[in-house]
């Protein structure tokens, strides 16, 4: 197999379609390992069937403390905790209740002073891709692009033709136009949007601002690139729900990798793209 030939896996997971494209590697075990990693994360974090996450929700919804035995779930909780702090509470899978949680890394005990539940949502996709990337690296893969529902993308190593991976986020309403173009290497990208084909599908959960419980319906697309999928997911979600001041604080840290594109004009109206908000 040449460096430019790809082996591909396509499958349904985490409520969406997942594609894994590995370049220069034809070892089926590598694809299998990445796929298994994603399913393992889904098994741990899903709330759509019995899982460690639903067991945790069951305890916390009664206001009880519990010890989280599942390694993947506990790792996710620690990561969410760090991202909740990094985003000033704007990324919060408990919808505003995270501050009442205490997580003890030593005992793996999770305590809450009021009833709450989690829905890891998009974080699960980013986190799943992170685990897949780790699995691929362990299998010796050096160049790959992974997509979960096209809203979560991870690139491993360099593009097969060298350098970074050129990615462009399409405008959700203006076919052929791009919101932003980024060149990434060994990084992850997350897109959160209140409009577009995927956003209008039945069954989609509303985007909620955890700090005040408001449902965010303003037409907008947030794009965030980060070292990990988990961080990118947290940041794109936070950017989408943040008020202007909080959004500027988030963007200031890495303005070339964090964007919010409002789509306030009527659909189809003539308007210039707004690459930064």
């Amino acid at each position, binding site marked *: 197999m040449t460096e430019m030939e790809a082996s591909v896996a396509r499958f349904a997971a985490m*409520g969406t379609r997942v*594609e894994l494209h590995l370049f220069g590697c034809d070892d089926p075990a590598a694809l299998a390992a990445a796929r298994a990693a994603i399913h393992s994360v889904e098994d741990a974090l899903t709330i759509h069937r019995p899982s460690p996450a639903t067991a945790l929700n069951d305890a916390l919804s009664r206001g009880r403390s519990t010890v989280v035995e599942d390694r993947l779930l506990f790792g996710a909780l620690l990561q969410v905790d760090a991202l909740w702090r990094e985003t000033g509470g704007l990324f919060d899978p408990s919808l505003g209740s995270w501050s009442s949680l205490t997580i003890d890394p030593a005992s793996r005990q999770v305590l809450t002073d009021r009833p709450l539940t989690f829905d890891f949502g998009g974080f699960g996709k980013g986190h799943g891709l992170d685990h897949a990337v780790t699995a691929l690296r362990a299998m010796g893969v050096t160049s790959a692009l992974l997509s979960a529902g096209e809203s*979560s993308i991870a690139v491993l190593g360099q593009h097969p*033709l060298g350098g970074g*991976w050129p*990615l*462009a986020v*399409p405008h959700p309403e203006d076919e052929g136009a791009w919101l932003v173009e980024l060149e990434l290497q060994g990084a992850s990208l997350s897109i959160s949007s209140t409009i577009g084909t995927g956003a209008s599908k039945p069954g*989609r959960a509303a985007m909620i601002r955890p700090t005040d419980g408001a449902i965010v319906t303003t037409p907008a697309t947030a*794009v965030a690139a980060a070292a990990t999928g988990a961080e990118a997911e947290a940041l794109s979600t936070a950017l989408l729900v943040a008020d202007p001041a909080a959004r500027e604080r988030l963007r200031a840290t890495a303005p070339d990798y964090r964007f919010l594109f409002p789509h306030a004009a009527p659909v189809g109206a003539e308007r210039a793209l707004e690459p930064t908000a």
Partner: protein
Amino acid sequence: MTDDDFALSRRTFLDRVLLASAGVGMSAAAPWAARAAEDIAKGPRVRIGVIGTGDRGRTLIQNLNKTRNCTVAALCDNFEPHMTKARAYVPTNTPIYTDHRKMLESKQIDAVVIATPLDLHARHTMDALDAGYPVFCEKAMARTIADCGAMVTRARARGKILQIGHQRLFNPTYLNALKRAQAGEIGPITQIRASWHRNRSWRRQIPPGGTEREINWRLYRDRSAGLMTELATHQLQVANWFMGGLPTRVMGSGSICFWKDGRDVYDQVALIYDYSDGRKVIYTSMLNNARYGCEEQIQGSKGTIEPELGRIYQEVQPGAVPALARMRADVQAGRKNTVPIGGATWFPELPVTTPGDSLGWGEYDETMLQFEGFGEAVRSGREVPGLLAQAYHASVASLLGEQAIDQGKALAWPTDLVTF
């Protein structure tokens, strides 16, 4: 062929039954179908005495009239308004009776068709068998599991044919659905959701001379198990058929939820039937909402069959992401182009939005066909194979479901049933 093409010739209909029943494994799963669709032997028509001339009885008389090997030779009913309506479908000189025993003693018939209220099925069947006649009885078989078994045992003891009306067994759409399921098109079947939802009271106007218990017998427990025996029986037969086995246990709940009009049968039931290997049939029936109507959703790992709609659906597999396919092609060609990707998360199409494919063959002459099969069985003295077991197990499943609801606990499939 279009879905609306109902104007098929009888020969075409029979050819389709034969075609549908000719698949791998079909001779074991539906041994009756090919037999019933065989050419009719020459000879005098089988003279049928019909007991019960209510709505269902008159429908059966009309279907008997379509057959090439049966003729209605006597009618029996003690309710004059029904008899008057039924006589319009038979020659004016057709003998009529108010007591079924008199009809059986007349010796002017060759076989008996029974379309009386459920609680009378066993008595009328036993009497006819004891009088030496083959019997075709409407489903469900009887009001109790014990009576269902007794009917089978009596037929065997008398050496007479007993056939129970389950017309879906002869429906080409169902036969074709079974053939495609057996060919693996929808993968292993692990769950069937079946429902029969109506939005009407089921209560009938009582004509002059009628009584509430005679006309509205379906609404009273001493005469019927209501939804379980009058509707669920059909679909539990289909479930057993497609599952290729029998339930291991049943649990359920029922209530008189909407039609609080003096009836004592449930107007709403919900049951779960367990089958081997964790497979399940989930059944609901109600009388105050018709949105989901009558259907069996036969679900396998690769697809779903909905035979009442005549549709087969494949599981929706995610399509490839076009931008990533282009990326691979570009890389292969040595081009490094920008990959346009990203937006709100891709969601799969909801299954209800997928149209599925037609199973075809939606015409309905199966009631006539099962009578022709009965007629040939009477002539030859050989029963149409497989039918009685299907009917018996469907009736047991419906009555066991009623018991599970009444007792509020899961009940195991009985171990003392008649064997086939």
